[in-house]
């Protein structure tokens, strides 16, 4: 059996719309591996390289001598907990405006639609939805911190 490019695209679309994160198909010599979200770890490696950044604020552009904060400190999500991750990169804000109470606090119940923060990308503010349901147990990211795509912002107990 031969798979055409269209077949492969069709399969990718089905996976994209499904709940599965990882999919592998073998037809004769042809192997298709599809993964959503985190890349499939290569043998031995359990974490992809730059999972998370150092929580220290990025050095100013002028500070040429300073290393660009390469310390990879993966956010450890305790067993049985969930995380709310940044849906895009930018500057993370914990409250709707300076001085205002934060969107959410530790101990607060949240649902999938709860707004838990803002991420600013070039003067455009995007609200961050929880996507998961449960109780906030830890605020991982700091107010005003630069966050990457996929970086943990909160830890939630389901």
């Amino acid at each position, binding site marked *: 059996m*031969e798979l055409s*490019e269209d077949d*492969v695209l069709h399969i*990718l679309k089905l996976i994209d719309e499904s709940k599965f994160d990882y999919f592998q198909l073998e037809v004769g010599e042809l*192997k*298709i*591996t*599809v993964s959503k*979200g*985190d*890349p*499939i*770890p*290569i*043998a031995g*490696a359990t974490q*992809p*390289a*730059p*999972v998370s*950044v150092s929580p220290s604020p*990025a*050095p*100013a*552009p*002028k*500070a*040429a001598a*300073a*290393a*660009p*904060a*390469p310390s990879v400190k993966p956010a450890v999500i305790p067993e049985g907990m969930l995380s709310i991750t940044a849906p*895009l*990169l*930018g*500057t993370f804000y914990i409250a709707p405006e300076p001085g205002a109470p934060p969107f959410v606090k530790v101990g607060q119940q949240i649902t999938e639609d709860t707004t838990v923060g803002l991420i600013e*990308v*070039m003067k*455009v503010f995007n609200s961050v939805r929880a996507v998961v349901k449960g109780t906030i147990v830890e605020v991982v990211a700091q107010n005003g911190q*630069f966050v*990457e*795509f*996929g*970086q943990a912002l909160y830890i939630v107990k389901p």
Partner: protein
Amino acid sequence: MSVTRVLVANRGEIAVRVIKACQSLGIETVAAVSDADRESMAAQIANRAVCIGPPRSTDSYLKVENLIAAAQGTGCDALHPGYGFLSERAALAQACVDNNITFIGPSAENITQMGDKLEARKIARSAGVPLVPGSDHARNPGEAGELAEQIGYPLLLKASAGGGGRGIKLVSNAREIEDTFRTAAAEARAAFGNDTLYMEKYVGNARHIEVQILGDQHGNVIHVGERDCSLQRRHQKIVEEAPAYAVPPEVRTKICEAAASLARRIGYRSAGTIEFIYDNDTADFYFLEMNTRIQVEHPVTEMITGVDLVGQQLHIARGEPLPFKQSDIRFAGHAIECRINAESPQHGFRPCPGRITEWNAPHGDGIRLDTHCYAGYFVPPYYDSLLAKLIVHAATRSAAADRIYAALDNFHVSGIDTLIPFLKTVIADPEYRSGAVNTQWLEKKLEAYSAQAG
């Protein structure tokens, strides 16, 4: 302009190439990676990686605002766009200017001028650079028909907003012109949002010759010689060489001088490439377009001149004058590059992503490999299929061909299909060896190869 920490706004082998050029100048790098590229070689060798979005490039590598935010968030004072993606979008160059980030490339104005192919033709004409006989205005099918009688058939209808082989239609005779005009205009509108077309005489027996340019911020512009990139499949280059061995030396000189005068005319800065069509039958050459970025095949020029083109981009961006004059540029020997794509030659050249289980690359005198691949690397399905560029240098073209054949023969990749077996048949071909090729030659070889393999 300060360039102390560079955001590398690209992926694959060019991201690795840029990081290495920065490292050799003591410049820090931050690799902007999509979620699919977190474990990429660029992410590993840069001082830091920053994830700019999901795998799909429209949500990551093609988002100007994400790249600017990534540069600011990681303290970068400069950005290198590589090739492809946003490298020729004036919006990125302008956003860098607006946010006090040094764009390692030309000005937004130069990108805009050369991105509009009609505007580029006008500039070329004013610089005295020969153009393919044709017309800058074909406003409707009727007018196109009249103009075609003067130009002669066959001819090409081209989209002003096209480029890189896109938005081109061949018209063989007068019966086709009006229908093809309507189709080409509709396609150009759909693909580029601009249905302006122009017409060019079709050169049947042609070579693709291009000239490497370097310009600094002080008005110095030189050429770094030419390349022959005639071996193409669907307008994508597969094998590139320097110098342009089949063009007489006096014509090569003229082509290079024409290119430099065009770049000088617009005050071009950084590395750029001016592409020409060369007519094998008449030895005439014509301006095609200018690419306002570093080119995939830049290494063949580096091999015969010893000039580090990406390194020069960094020096130029810092405001330094070019360290050499035109007369300092010397050419030695012959270089050939083969693009090792993740494509299956036995299956109609379909892309072949997946896990590389074996990556045993050739080494030796005069052999260079620009790559981001290694054993265990997963080639993601979201991006182009270039795995590596194998480049060789030798005293003569014949010796270079022998060397690249041997290198291809010693290049062992498992887990995914690559172009290596097909490239070997190309390099071994007597017509290729004799240099009797043109821009259609590879397509014909490919048909024969597929028929044989199928």
